[in-house]
């Protein structure tokens, strides 16, 4: 029977039918996910009440993976309803120098951050440092949620990485660092005159014990926004996995002379921190608790200061290996010093996640 199947399948394989819905051939495969969401938020800022909701495809991502022996490439295409945008999230080429040692060129994600770019393990609906608008008056507040994380997102450059036995080192020279989130600023130049920037990222991680990993890294960016201003972000996180438990702790600190953080266009210091615990109470379900805090301070005398504390409780149930339902309730309590107003917000979010 083995031969019957294999010979028959040989022709099926040769004709490209019914085999490997994901692995197109030995050189090309793809993966991705769809996130259909509903969320509702009720906010209060001083005497103003506001409610809002979101229903739609929060995110769709299709990643194309190319593999040619020591050379690989990846192109990630993404749509986000939340910010009404289709874009190439990542597009890069990787050359393997030797086992664990790689050179990467192109547009790629930052090495920094535990719960800033993507929700950790997709266990929650929202990121640790994302809140509903009105907290800080910035151009970003047109969106349902503002991700105030100060770590970079995606930049273009050249990166060297080395990974062995859970230990990691990486260094990246790139066209920017933090300013990538502004979108309109110097998206494709590497230093030079007139509104240009360059950036550097360095990161390392150590496997301290089985399940225990410590990461530390930083990003520096030199801009020409206000006559050769500099900006930097430091990020460190510790994760521990034991049995059915996952724990995470993260610290972010950054200073920007170019107005690259939430207040924008002003010198600003930011501190962010997070602690989270995830417990899998069955083969299919887990519960997550998270506390995160953020403090934004304008770096001038009598400058604005805003801070917040966010409490998150989330539940995830996996119907199959590639279909899960995530429910979250988050409460944010903060203060917008600008208007000397208290701020609080209660959010319910639910996501149906399908991955392939």
């Amino acid at each position, binding site marked *: *029977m083995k031969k019957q199947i294999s010979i028959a399948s040989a*022709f099926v394989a040769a004709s490209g039918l019914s085999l490997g819905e994901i692995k197109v051939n030995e050189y090309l495969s793809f993966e991705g996910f769809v996130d259909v969401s509903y969320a509702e938020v009720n906010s209060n800022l001083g005497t103003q009440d506001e409610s809002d909701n979101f229903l739609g495809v929060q995110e769709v991502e299709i990643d194309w993976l190319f593999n040619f022996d020591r050379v690989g490439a990846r192109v990630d295409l993404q749509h986000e309803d939340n910010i009404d945008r289709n874009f190439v999230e990542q597009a890069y080429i990787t050359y393997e120098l030797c086992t664990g040692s790689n050179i990467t060129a192109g547009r790629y994600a930052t090495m920094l951050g535990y719960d800033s770019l993507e929700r950790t393990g997709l266990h929650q609906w929202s990121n640790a440092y994302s809140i509903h608008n009105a907290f800080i008056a910035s151009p970003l507040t047109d969106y349902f949620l503002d991700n105030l994380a100060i770590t970079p997102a995606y930049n273009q450059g050249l990166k060297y990485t080395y990974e062995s036995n859970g230990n990691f080192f990486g260094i990246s020279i790139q066209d920017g660092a933090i300013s990538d989130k502004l979108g309109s600023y110097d998206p494709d130049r590497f230093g030079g005159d007139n509104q240009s920037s360059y950036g550097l990222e360095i990161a390392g991680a150590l496997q301290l014990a089985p399940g225990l990993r410590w990461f530390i890294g930083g990003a520096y960016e030199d801009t020409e926004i206000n006559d050769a201003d500099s900006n930097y972000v430091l990020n460190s996180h510790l994760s521990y996995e034991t049995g059915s438990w996952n724990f995470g702790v993260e610290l972010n600190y950054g200073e920007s002379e170019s107005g690259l953080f939430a207040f924008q266009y002003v010198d600003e210091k930011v501190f962010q921190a997070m602690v989270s615990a995830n417990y899998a109470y069955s083969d299919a379900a887990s519960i997550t608790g998270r506390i995160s805090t953020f403090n934004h301070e304008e770096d001038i005398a009598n400058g604005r200061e805003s801070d917040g504390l966010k409490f998150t409780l989330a539940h*995830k149930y996996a119907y199959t290996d*590639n279909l899960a339902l995530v429910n979250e309730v988050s409460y944010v309590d903060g203060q917008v010093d600008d208007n000397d107003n208290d701020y609080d917000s209660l959010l319910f979010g639910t996501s149906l996640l399908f991955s*392939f």
Partner: protein
Amino acid sequence: MGASAVNPVAMDIMAKTAWRDLRWTDEGLWKQIRHGMTSNEVVALLGSPPRSVKSMKPKIDLVYFYEASLLDRQSMVKGRVSFKDNAVVDFLAPDFHSVQGFRKKP
């Protein structure tokens, strides 16, 4: 077109390529899968999976799906191997006999 038109080299390449991708259709190989094996050991045994997914289940990181459909979905053979921390924690061997039964139908 006569049989002489079939390029034997091409047939040989096709057969070897197919067998490399379809080693997992050897029922005996599934009996060698053990809990704790690494993903590299599984690939060395069964070949590279045609489909894999980062699992949504909390106690599973990655699942290798070994699937092939000969004619239609009823004739599909499906096996899977689940990993946590790069070690096999669960697996399901394909039911090859169900395919044989289908093939015996007129």
